[in-house]
């Protein structure tokens, strides 16, 4: 028979863990709301930007080659992995790491792969396991700003235009809803020219020339794409953590119920045996 005090201790430790997990769930829920708002804010910007870009590139001759869309034979490849700084969010980080490894070892095994890591979790993993980590950006999450992300994006664009890498792939969690994340591996560079859609093109005046505007717009849209990936990942992180903590709280509740039942049974058994002893003792005196 388990010691009553022991069970009581376990119940109280489960209870305090439950308090922590449910508090973390609340915090994540609040942060999720914020992160979701940020994405919703970004969407009109991103959509409009692609719209203008499509509008212009449609009226441009495709003969013109642009620095960011040059396709080269893929030998050196750069992965940009977006994970979180903190754990306790289910398979959120390990999914990204797994996907990246499978891309490196299967799809692109004949290429030299390098990694730019955003988020402590993937930075730690990839540096520990001897992958070629070019740079890490873990402090970005203290405050996610467009400028901060722009700098990273500019860095990536520079190494691409210097022909150091022939292809850049983004690996991140796309936010679908609080409970589901979609792991995405997206081609970042070279830029694929947007699909021609039948949109109404007004008779625009271009100021300065179309070409210059395109040169201006493409880096901008690349920055926006990275920014969106990071915001997506940030929202997913909180969604994943919220779900994980919800499950943990539920499990703790179950465990607590089981333990309480067990505790009561043990207590009853102890009382019964005590009564039996007393009765037995009394009977022995009478007898």
């Amino acid at each position: 028979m388990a010691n009553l005090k022991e069970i009581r201790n376990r119940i109280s430790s489960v209870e305090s863990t439950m308090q922590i997990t449910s508090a973390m769930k609340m915090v994540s829920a609040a942060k999720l709301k914020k992160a979701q708002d940020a994405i919703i804010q970004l969407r009109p910007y991103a959509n409009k930007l692609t719209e203008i870009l499509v509008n212009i590139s449609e009226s441009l001759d495709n003969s013109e080659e642009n620095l960011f869309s040059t396709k080269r034979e893929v030998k050196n490849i750069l992965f940009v992995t977006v994970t979180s700084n903190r754990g306790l969010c289910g398979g959120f980080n390990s999914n990204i790491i797994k996907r990246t490894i499978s891309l490196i070892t299967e799809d692109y095994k004949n290429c030299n792969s390098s990694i730019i890591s955003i988020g402590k979790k993937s930075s730690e993993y990839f540096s520990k396991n001897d992958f070629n980590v070019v740079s890490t950006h873990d402090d970005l999450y203290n405050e996610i700003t467009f400028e901060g992300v722009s700098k990273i994006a500019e860095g990536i664009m520079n190494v691409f235009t210097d022909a150091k890498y022939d292809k850049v792939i983004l690996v991140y969690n796309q936010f679908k809803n609080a409970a589901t994340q979609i792991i995405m591996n997206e081609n970042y560079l070279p830029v694929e020219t947007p699909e021609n859609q039948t949109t109404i093109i007004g008779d625009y005046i271009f100021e300065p020339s179309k070409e210059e505007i395109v040169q201006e717009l493409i880096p901008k849209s690349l920055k926006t794409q990275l920014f969106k990936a990071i915001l997506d990942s940030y929202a997913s992180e909180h969604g994943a953590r919220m779900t994980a903590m919800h499950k943990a709280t539920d499990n703790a509740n179950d465990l607590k119920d089981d333990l309480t039942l067990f505790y009561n049974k043990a207590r009853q058994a102890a009382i019964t045996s005590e009564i039996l002893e007393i009765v037995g003792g009394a009977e022995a005196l009478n007898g």
Partner: protein
Amino acid sequence: MILEIITPEKKAFEGEVVSVKFPGISGGFEILNNHAPIISALSKGDIRIITADNKTENFGINGGVIEMQQNKIIVLAD
């Protein structure tokens, strides 16, 4: 005409305006009502708006793009 200024982080301005002055990449320019459709790149500088009730407002930007179509201006600013 209607003006919208959108940044990646938020919508900075939306409303009826009389005229807007932009820091274009090849020099500043002003857009009045019923301007022809235009797409232009902007450089670092101030956007000066005169709203429908004759107030002047300023927005500092680090660059951006504007699109004007059917009396609606959309500014994508950084």
